[in-house]
């Protein structure tokens, strides 16, 4: 009886190994099912909602929608955003708070999307970039409002 069991074990072992090898062989001869992307030559297209980094939208007249309300700064869990405001003189003589610099620390950002949700004027959005590596850490601190840009009319 020992011999019969022994032969049965050998048979089932060989069968299971060969069926696994058969599957591997199938993929060996079916190159179309290989899905590897050649990364540096072929760049992946990220989904439209992909959260790569925070950017501020500007229109063709170099105007943004940020009022400097600091809602995003308060919503951020990591102190990624720092908003510097200035007092701007309005045409009617009144002073009004306006955005001076929108400082964004990419090195602290965890892409949690809370600032985008918090923004009442849709001034910032997520960009689909993903190659963020730089040689120096200080290059990751960015100023998001373009030089010379000002608040879009009608955005309160």
């Amino acid at each position: 009886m020992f011999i019969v069991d022994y032969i049965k074990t050998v048979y089932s072992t060989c069968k299971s190994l060969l069926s696994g090898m058969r599957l591997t062989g199938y993929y060996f001869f079916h190159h179309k099912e290989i899905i590897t992307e050649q990364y540096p030559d072929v760049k992946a297209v990220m989904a439209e909602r992909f959260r790569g980094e925070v950017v501020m939208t500007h229109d063709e007249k170099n105007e943004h929608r940020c009022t400097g309300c600091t809602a995003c700064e308060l919503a951020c869990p990591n102190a990624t955003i720092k908003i510097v405001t200035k007092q701007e003189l309005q045409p009617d003589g009144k002073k009004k708070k306006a955005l001076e610099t929108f400082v964004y620390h990419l090195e602290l950002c965890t892409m949690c999307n809370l600032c985008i949700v918090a923004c009442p004027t849709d001034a910032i959005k997520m960009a689909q970039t993903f190659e963020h590596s730089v040689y120096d850490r200080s290059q990751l601190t960015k100023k998001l409002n373009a030089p010379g840009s000002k608040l879009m009319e009608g955005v309160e």
Partner: protein
Amino acid sequence: MQYEEIATTEEGNLVINVGPQHPATHGVMHLVITMNGETILNVEPHLGYIHRSIEKMCESLSYRQFIYSTSRMDYLSSHINNHGCALAVEKGLQIEVPERAKVIRILMDELTRIASHVLWWGAMAMDVGALTPFFHAFRERELINDIMEETCGARLTMNYMVPGGVMTDLHPNFVKKVKEFVAFFRTKIDEYDTLVTYNVIFQERMKNVGVISAADAVSFGCTGPVLRACGVKSDIRKLAPYDGYEKLNFEEPLETAGDSYARYLVRMRELRESLSIIDQLIDNIPEGDFQAKTKAVLKLPKGEFYSRVETARGEFGVYIISEGGLTPYRIHFRSPGFANLSCLNHIAKGQKIGDLVAMMGTLDLVIPDIDR
């Protein structure tokens, strides 16, 4: 090496350090193993190499902000961790979550569970010496990651579940893509079985290795597939259903052997159960809001709030103590990985050193989940 330089105990037993940087521990964990020849006498896990004090950090974050950090604990079931936190906050604020949000949450949870188990399957096979399954596993996981990326905007740390619902509505392609994935993945599970499950070498390495009895597993606090492999019903989705799991028709996979192979089989059957849950829901996503109306600033009333969910590894609990302020007074996370690790010494005693990595593989440890 001179004999004197080999670390030994007083009885002459060999002491070996595995880790903190070791490919088989899947993270930075340090195991101090005392051995007599090849037989393990004692395994002592040393933790703390990836401790980020997430619990303390959460005390200075508001109830909207702290959820993102739980994605970084058990990063393979980040949706489910976020779900647990959202449930605890909703319990405190007594928010009624819209039906659509509930269904979206369950769909995301189950997709995450599949992605986690698939990755575990690949890593498990790699632990016992088979390299090919890892690439098969990553091919399928990539499809789930693409679905997540399209709807949630991130591939690993989503921060998609917010108090009151989910952050954004489903992407228009979501239903189509999930259906394609489910049909595709059903054929691939059979391939997994052919490659690994029925492989006699694999079975010989898993059967009767790392056996734990049901009573021991309960007393060590094991949950999830580790406990279910001993035949104990412990699925939170069945015991304390949340967000509409009670309406679904699914089985809780149970095995009785309690060895490594039983833990393996439980997870493989859970993959099929998750697919059937997705099948039941994907055509019946109700219309409506994806998020309940909540105040801009969330303030939990004074008191203690606890919620628990079933992650891919076991029971995940969120315990919030609130003093009525903007931030929690104390948050504690009951993570499944920590409790499951505690039984490693028990199951490894008397076994051979070669089986240790296989045993750790079936416990499905995620080190950031253990250390927090």
